[in-house]
């Protein structure tokens, strides 16, 4: 049953993305930036999806601490890994854009810098999971880190924004015109498709996590006595 849902969601996501890419390719180039501006159709949804993953991880971590049910821990780790991948996509598309437009591989603008710091924050969540072997302790400590990380996300953003108001630098994606409504629709569909993909990847990872837990406990049982 779960696998059928995954399959359907995956196909739907690919179909939507396919349609969108086709339409994006057909759009005219932007006045100042040329074709590269089209990367925004992926750059922005990737960030939004990553933030969605962070939110799910936050809620899941709290639920684990309250209910002590390991499925919440599995959700938290799966969703965080997927979110990290999406956020990396956001950073990479940002870097590509910066290279084409500004000639540099990186600009320290507010959103990119915040994204980078948040990426490192959640990467440290994965690192602490690797450092703890015992599953219950690992889940508990990771949940605490996840809660801390989510609280830091807005603080990081506002602090870097404050920094940038005083030390203005290149602003990523200052598009001069406004966004026509049908283009916003493409963006929205991309967002939906990415959320669906995110759900698919998370569920695959969830299956993996459940299997790993079962193996761990069986191994422990076999070796304990």
């Amino acid at each position, binding site marked *: 049953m779960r696998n059928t849902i995954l399959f359907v969601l995956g196909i739907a996501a690919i179909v939507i993305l396919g349609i969108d890419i086709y339409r994006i390719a057909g759009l005219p180039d932007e006045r100042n930036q040329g074709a590269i501006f089209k990367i925004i159709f992926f750059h922005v949804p990737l960030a939004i999806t990553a933030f969605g993953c962070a939110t799910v991880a936050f809620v899941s971590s709290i639920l684990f*601490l309250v209910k002590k049910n390991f499925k919440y821990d599995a959700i938290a780790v799966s969703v965080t890994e997927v979110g990290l991948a999406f956020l990396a996509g956001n950073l990479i598309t940002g870097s590509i854009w910066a290279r084409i437009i500004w000639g540099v591989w990186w600009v320290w603008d507010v959103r990119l810098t915040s994204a980078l*710091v948040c990426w*490192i*924050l959640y990467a*440290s969540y994965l*690192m*602490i999971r690797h*450092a*703890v*072997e015992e599953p*219950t*302790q690992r889940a*508990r*400590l990771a949940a*605490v*880190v996840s*809660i*801390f*990380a989510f*609280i*830091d996300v807005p*603080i*990081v953003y*506002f*602090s*870097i924004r*404050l*920094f940038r108001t*005083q030390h203005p630098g290149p602003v990523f994606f200052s598009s001069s015109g406004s966004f026509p409504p049908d283009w916003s629709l493409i963006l929205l569909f991309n967002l939906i498709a990415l959320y669906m993909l995110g759900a698919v990847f998370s569920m695959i990872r969830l299956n993996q996590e459940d299997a790993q837990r079962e193996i761990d406990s069986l191994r422990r049982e076999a070796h304990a006595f």
Partner: protein
Amino acid sequence: MEFARQVLVIAAKDLRAELRTKEALNASAAFALVILLLFSFAFDPDAETTREIASGLLWIVFAFAGTLLLNRSFARELPNDCLDALVAAPVPGAALFLGKVLANYVLLIAIEMLSLVVFGIFYNVRWTVQFGQLMFVLVLGTWALTIMGTIFSALTVNIRLREVMLPILIYPFLVPALMSAMQLTVGLMAGKPIGPETANWVPMLIGFNVIYTAVSVFLVETVLVG
């Protein structure tokens, strides 16, 4: 009040133990001095560049040297399983945590004052001009360092690679606080008081401290009790 008394008992115990051995203090102070020395080779300190880089440098020194100290905070309870006895005692986790925060804070301020003096000498920066406001920033910024360092020290106490995990965890989280402290220190090092451009960093730093102190106190029992 019972809670305050317990906090002071824990703080006094940590301070007494540290001052007797001075292991972490010495390591931290030595590390701070070495970083200050090495940085002087990284660039040629004429007046203008020094002052601009100075505040950033200083808080990096505080953060790095501080981590050495903060790591010891809960790690010192590991030999002989002393942490068990502390957790078993009728002391709220929050009191245990705040007691250690207090002790760490005192030690960290000491290291920072030493670093400031050495920094002023090596880099020829007159940091006493805005002494009051500089101390104000020091007080706030050090609290941020201490809170994050102590809670993560508790979190990493029982895991392997503890000395490595603490810095990896703590620095990304501290970005807003370190940034605020650095921005505030820049002007103060140049002799300018906190003005309209920099005033916004103060609420940022205070907000950071309040939020993370509250969250840490709330979660410390979860961290310590399996």
